[in-house]
């Protein structure tokens, strides 16, 4: 992809990483701050870039469609182009400053790699969702609106609704419900995963203990990654399906 935006994005993370390290002077604290940034920002950027790229390259897509190429390979190629370049920006931009700071000798390396892995997953998920929205909406403004709404819903509103349900039904045992609720939102899932890995689950109180019991085990970790993979695979399948039926 010939996009200067991916360089800007890369430079942003590079700068963020350096600044955080200088201000914190501590790797694991920097990782926590980074988590907060990544959880919110990565999905937002993935969504916006995905939608923007799709609409901007529309003419190009039409040019390609007249060539002897399979539709699925055109759209998957575009998706992977955006998602992978965003992921590369994230991994390199954050990775470089941390590596120079001495990540490899530090104990935070696993926390940090988990952070990058979930960040990459979130990029893949939200770019795929954005492509879905763009494919289903011819109108650019509508497409952008829905994409932003989706991000807002998963990043903010979902948590609110979730919390309200928990308060409303607080007399009932809610461990299972809250576990499932967390699993169904990729942002929440990533956040919980990282928080627990950072061993600050004490902050979460009783639920934290339940969560720790589940996510802390390798079983929980595997289930979580399976969920994240499902979140990637389903939208990608829909991209293929939808693109086969679309008129240009």
């Amino acid at each position, binding site marked *: 992809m010939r996009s200067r935006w991916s360089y800007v994005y890369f430079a942003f993370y590079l700068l963020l990483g350096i600044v955080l390290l200088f201000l914190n002077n501590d790797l694991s604290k920097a990782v926590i701050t980074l988590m907060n940034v990544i959880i919110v920002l990565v999905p937002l950027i993935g969504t916006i870039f995905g939608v923007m790229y799709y609409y901007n390259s529309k003419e190009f897509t039409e040019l390609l469609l007249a060539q002897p190429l399979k539709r699925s390979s055109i759209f998957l190629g575009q998706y992977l182009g955006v998602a992978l370049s965003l992921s590369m920006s994230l991994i390199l931009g954050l990775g470089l400053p941390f590596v120079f700071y001495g990540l490899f000798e530090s104990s935070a390396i696993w926390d940090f790699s988990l952070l990058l892995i979930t960040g990459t997953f979130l990029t893949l998920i939200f770019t795929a969702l954005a492509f879905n929205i763009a494919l289903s909406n011819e109108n650019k403004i509508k497409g952008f609106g829905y994409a932003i709404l989706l991000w807002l819903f998963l990043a903010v509103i979902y948590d609110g609704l979730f919390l309200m349900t928990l308060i409303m039904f607080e007399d009932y045992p809610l461990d299972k419900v809250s576990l499932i609720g967390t699993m169904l939102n990729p942002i929440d899932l990533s956040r919980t995963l990282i928080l627990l890995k950072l061993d600050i689950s004490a902050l979460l109180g009783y639920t934290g203990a339940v969560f720790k019991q589940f996510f802390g085990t390798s079983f929980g970790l595997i289930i979580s990654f399976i969920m994240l993979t499902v979140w990637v695979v389903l939208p990608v399948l829909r991209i293929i399906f939808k693109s086969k039926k679309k*008129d240009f």
Partner: protein
Amino acid sequence: MVTIENLHKKFGKNQVLSGVDLSITEGGIFAVLGPNGSGKTTLIKSVLGMVIPDKGNITVLNENIKKNSDYRHKIDYLPQIANFPSNLRVKELIKMIKDLRKPTNEDQRLIELFKLEPFLDKKLGNLSGGTKQKVNLVLTFMFDSPLIILDEPTTGLDPISLIRLKDLISAEKEKGKTILITSHIMSFVEEISDEIVFILEGKIYFKGTIQKLKNKTDQPDFEHAIASILTDNHA
């Protein structure tokens, strides 16, 4: 060469094609005519697989085009509006399309023919409409495919390029190729086409030579013959 059977296509509530049956034999220039919004581009895009028909069958060179992309190796297509990615250079675009299809040296000759050398290093976003159309023509004609589809090839071309385009089309015809053209310039159509296909309200209204159309409508010249079809059906 191309067979279309009972083709239906609807965009939302707008029924664009309602039962088109058309068979195009090998060799010769076929002009697809019709008023604005009659479904010419939709028909062509259906043949290319860019528009998925609701109903009907299309075969190109005896291959059913459904769930198939290889047959497009045998088609050169000139899109109606040349919208290229604006941050690519002309040279890069030509190279890229060559990579996608097959190597060819024909582009050099076409670039010379349309005097495009000074523009090769320019970005496509900075080109004028006519120059973009010339790039479009180079991209279409540089592959030696048996079927050529041109959607409004004359848009934006200056008179000298138009003459070169006509020569180019005639030369391709001499090679025994099948060429499908849509155009609103009647003199252009009359000059080059062997047969015309007239689409009206989503159906084939007329198919045959220009002489046959003149006889049918009782008009001495082609332009009036077309006009009389339109007034008879829309007045």
